[in-house]
């Protein structure tokens, strides 16, 4: 009992401890090797910059978070009906799926400058890039999920005389849900990258924009603080979805 709880504690504490140790090593090396701050600032210097620029960091984090989340949700809204259409209608599948899979191969990041050219300097081009990046992983996983229904379960529903509507709601949707969340977890990580890339291309705010101008002005500690925040944002969104998944899909081990 005592052994198992202490080993549990070690397991839980291991990851934070490794992070702390690496940060300490970084701090130590930065001071010992006298690395110039504009090349590689020590963690303490980054922290000081973060405190000093807290209001700017908060504002730009909010901007990036909003673009990411709005784009991500829009991608879900667009890909869900399409995935249902593709999985249920053989004609739609034949016509749409090859086009969509072809489009998936286009590097979305490379399209970012064009999107900004077309949609101007508002928040929308950034959201659109996020949508483009998130759309395919959700769609592909959702289609796979809707088609992953075991034949035995379909037989059961057929033997009960279930309508296609009931088969969809009672069987296809639950079977597809774990796949949907897998798609979402892949997509949300891409979403943050998409937002930052489009902020690199053209923007007046957002963490990507902040990284761009702070490095241009040799404010390297501020750039690092922004990168740290982006990382936290990404991890938080991922775990947020995982949390939702655990509560919605509570039947898989």
């Amino acid at each position, binding site marked *: 009992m005592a052994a198992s709880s202490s080993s549990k504690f070690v397991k839980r504490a291991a990851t934070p401890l490794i992070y702390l140790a690496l940060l300490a090593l970084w701090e130590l090396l930065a001071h010992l090797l006298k690395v110039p701050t504009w090349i590689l600032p020590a963690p303490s210097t980054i922290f000081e910059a973060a405190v000093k620029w807290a209001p700017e960091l908060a504002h730009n984090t909010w901007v990036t978070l909003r673009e990411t989340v709005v784009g991500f949700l829009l991608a879900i809204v667009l890909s869900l009906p399409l995935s249902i259409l593709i999985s249920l209608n053989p004609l739609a599948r034949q016509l749409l799926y090859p086009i969509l899979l072809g489009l998936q191969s286009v590097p979305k990041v490379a399209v970012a400058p064009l999107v900004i050219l077309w949609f101007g300097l508002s928040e929308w081009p950034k959201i659109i890039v996020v949508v483009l990046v998130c759309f395919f992983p959700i769609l592909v996983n959702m289609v796979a999920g809707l088609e992953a229904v075991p034949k035995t379960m379909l037989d059961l529903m057929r033997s009960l*005389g279930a309508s296609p509507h009931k088969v969809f709601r009672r069987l296809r949707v639950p079977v597809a849900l774990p796949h949907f969340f897998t798609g979402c977890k892949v997509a949300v990580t891409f979403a943050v990258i998409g937002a930052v890339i489009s902020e690199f291309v053209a923007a007046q705010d957002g963490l990507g924009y902040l990284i761009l101008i702070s490095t241009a002005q040799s404010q390297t500690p501020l750039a690092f603080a922004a990168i740290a925040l982006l990382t936290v944002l990404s991890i938080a969104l991922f775990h947020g979805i995982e949390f939702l998944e655990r509560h919605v899909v509570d039947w898989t081990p």
Partner: protein
Amino acid sequence: MIAATGLRAAPPPSPAAAVAVIDLKGVTKVYAGTDGGSVYALGPVDLRIEPGSFVSVVGPSGCGKSTLLRLVAGLEMPDQGTMQRYGAPLDGPSHEVGIVFQEHVLFPWISVLENVLLPADVLSLPKAASSERAMRLLEMTGLKDFANLRPQMLSGGMKQRAAFCRAMLSDPRLLLLDEPFGALDALTREELSLELSRLWQDLGRTALLITHDIEEAILLGDRILIMSDRPGTIRAEIAVDLPRPRNAETVKLPRFQEIKYQVRDIIFNRAQA
């Protein structure tokens, strides 16, 4: 002891007693093979199931006995022959037919009770009456205390009991059993077959059992149909004149052993019945 009061099927009106529950004539089934050719899976088969009887079908694996059950269930259509259910053409699944599949096929995302209630949900049966019936079925099969658990928390035998409850929910007149104990260990198999035999007798239904287990077929059936290798045809029929209710002692009766060897001889030595 198990109380089946209130679950017993209403006695069929006397003219209907003459009509067979299932009547297949000259039924064959051909599947398209992977190499473009055709695979003769079944037939021609004649099968008549009288009301209130328990028919067991035994045969080697791959003989098309599952195909036979899928045809009777209305899940597949024959290539030749005619099929009738209660005197009407059999052209699709019916809520008067309950099926227990080889795998339990319980949905892991809903509770045991909700799984048992699935036919009521699909057929839009009245909720209160269905729930009451579901709970009674779960009580009969010893699953009452597990009603609100997810099926993955149950043992293999309990899952198959739940699947039986689900098949019985809509009060079907015919119960189809497709190797219902095939995925279970030997001890659970025997226990469940005896339990099913008792339930069937208490509930007074017609049943068709597909199995490769000879003892199971004898223990449950009024008559045994023995199928040949593919394409499966019915090569012999044996009446099981063992007393009911059957129990663990039935297996020890000399007559049981006699029938068992008779069936084995037909299957393995290709002897004529």
